[in-house]
């Protein structure tokens, strides 16, 4: 697709086109002792977020998945690449107004329910601020809108919850507050960075179900970042598998997770605890002897099946 066509498609359609996104951090060489790189680099990442879909970005720590989210949230500037959204390249320098407009369309949820809320502020404050900053509703309606948002995420009664401080809520409730805050500006895209990994097991499903609801009712595009593949299967329409900054495989969820093509994906899937599979599986060979598959500079993504891309050695 030509650049002009891409731009046209992205005009307020809620489609986010990420092309060749790359981020290099200056590495302190002395710290790298292990084979796997510790620098959170992102290397030529390309994908599209569409309204009403959940795209899962799966990878282990150090794969660069969180960095991708922060780049899309414009907390960092990329080394190269582009992010086409609303007719603009979001990687270009922006004025304060342009940035504000972007932030009214693209929001983020963080991993740590304990750290993502200001401990000395009420819940009401957290949700009011985005409403006021972006003028989402007239002043007279702000209070009611806060309550609406709390109801939407299932925190009832909203008046009681709004008056509380973060430490008075449980982890799951705090994450719901974070979601309500993200919803306040009525975004087209929500970047969810490991939203459930610090929650108790029995509460995780609730948050995932909430995401599914929001995706359907409000046609939001979610980027769901996680290391928990099973949860990715539960919510995602498309899965991207990352390793050391590169996407190694991407495609429709069941195609990638049930019929993985790249050795690294296969390794990941075989390592996930799965009581049904049990010890029928081969024990993993020692790390030194394991072939992780085509990775690194001489490889590229190739369409292996319809919509299902896998990284292979360049011809």
């Amino acid at each position: 697709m030509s650049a002009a066509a891409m731009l046209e498609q992205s005009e307020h359609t809620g489609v986010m086109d990420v092309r060749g996104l790359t981020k290099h951090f200056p590495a302190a060489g002395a710290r790298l002792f292990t084979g796997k790189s510790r620098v959170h680099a992102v290397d030529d990442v390309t994908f599209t977020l569409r309204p009403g879909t959940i795209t899962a970005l799966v990878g282990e720590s150090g794969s660069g998945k969180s960095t991708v989210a922060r780049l899309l949230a414009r907390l960092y500037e990329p080394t190269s690449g582009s992010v086409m959204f609303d007719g603009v390249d979001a990687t270009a320098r922006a004025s304060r107004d342009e940035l504000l407009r972007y932030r009214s369309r693209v929001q983020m949820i963080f991993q740590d329910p304990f750290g993502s809320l200001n401990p000395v502020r009420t819940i009401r404050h957290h949700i009011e601020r985005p409403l006021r900053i972006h003028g989402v509703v007239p002043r007279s309606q702000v209070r009611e809108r806060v309550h609406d948002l709390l109801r939407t995420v299932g925190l009832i009664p909203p008046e009681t919850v709004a008056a509380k401080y973060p430490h008075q809520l449980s982890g799951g409730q705090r994450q719901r507050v974070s979601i309500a805050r993200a919803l306040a500006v009525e975004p087209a895209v929500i970047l969810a960075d490991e939203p459930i990994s610090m929650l108790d097991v029995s509460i995780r499903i609730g948050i995932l179900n909430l995401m599914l609801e929001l995706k359907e009712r409000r046609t939001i595009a979610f980027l769901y970042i996680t290391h928990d593949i099973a949860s990715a299967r539960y919510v995602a329409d498309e899965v991207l598998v990352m390793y050391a900054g590169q996407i190694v495989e991407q495609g429709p969820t069941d195609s990638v997770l049930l019929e993985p093509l790249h050795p690294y994906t296969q390794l990941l899937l075989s390592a996930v605890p799965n009581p049904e599979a049990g010890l029928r599986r081969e024990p993993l060979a020692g790390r030194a002897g394991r072939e992780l598959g085509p990775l690194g500079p001489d490889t590229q993504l190739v369409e292996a099946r319809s919509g299902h891309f896998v990284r292979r050695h360049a011809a």
Partner: protein
Amino acid sequence: MTGVVENAAGTSRSRVSGTALVELQQLVVDYVMQDRVVRAIDHVDLTIHTGEIVGLAGESGCGKSTTGNAILQILRPPAQVTSGRVLFRGEDLTKLRGEELRKFRWRNVSMVFQSAMNALNPVMRVGDQFADMMQAHEKIDKKQALSQAGELLQMVGIDAGRLRAYPHELSGGMRQRVIIAMALALRPELVIMDEPTTALDVVVQREILQQVEALKNDLGFAVLFITHDLSLLLEFADRVAIMYAGEIVESAPAASIFANHRHPYTNGLIKSFPPLTGQMERLTGIPGSPPDLAAPPPGCRFHPRCVHCRPDEPELYRRQTTKKPELKQVAPDHLVACHLFGEPA
């Protein structure tokens, strides 16, 4: 009871001898604070046999870590053992003091913690810490200690040259292996592992657990594996005990928990893990949240969140809201604490 234990997949896992190694009998642990007392563990019974992997599963605040600490007698004020016994080969550990307790710790029972960085001194080389620890327990000189340490590292799959490294120079997985090696240094009979792999990636986790299993088969120690990841236990453990709000609500071989669980909480927990293969359906998790242990619900602690607790069955409802269910046997080696099962008193 000697026999071969099967894991969830039905493959045979290990031979478990009948000897009870550690027995918790009606153990009660309270946190005594200025204005209130919080009961962290409420009359818990648990048995670990020699060579057995027992999994202790539950969510945050259920008391599973406290249980592990109680076995090793490392509870700190305001936590205290209010009543009950912790038996190691018949000897009551709560009665041991000072030197005897110190000797018992690490030699008979040792522990592996979640975050190795909390357990390793960041400014000492790994080898020195090993030697330190071994010399504290045995009369050997530094050279011997270091050579033994080297052997231990190799046992867990690390090159002995790494003895000269500082903790921050090792990856997370390697650090965890070091901790495991330290825990095995004196060949204890029981190793308590408290979320040993939670902070690690899934691939590293599997490697380490495979290693632990191989070592277990070699050295013959038992493992108490404490974690919130029930799916991991169903693969890895021989028997699993589920804890909720300071009590054990179900205890059975891993295969039975997986295929034949009874307690509604266990059911909710298992249904909170989306399947990796097969049919995908909408899950519901468990509504509500764990109770405040300072003021737990009367009767069955799980009843506010239980779908089977409904006022339209008045007799059952009355029992559920007033009487605490006791652990009853519903099948061989399968105990459940629930009013839906077993005969009422």
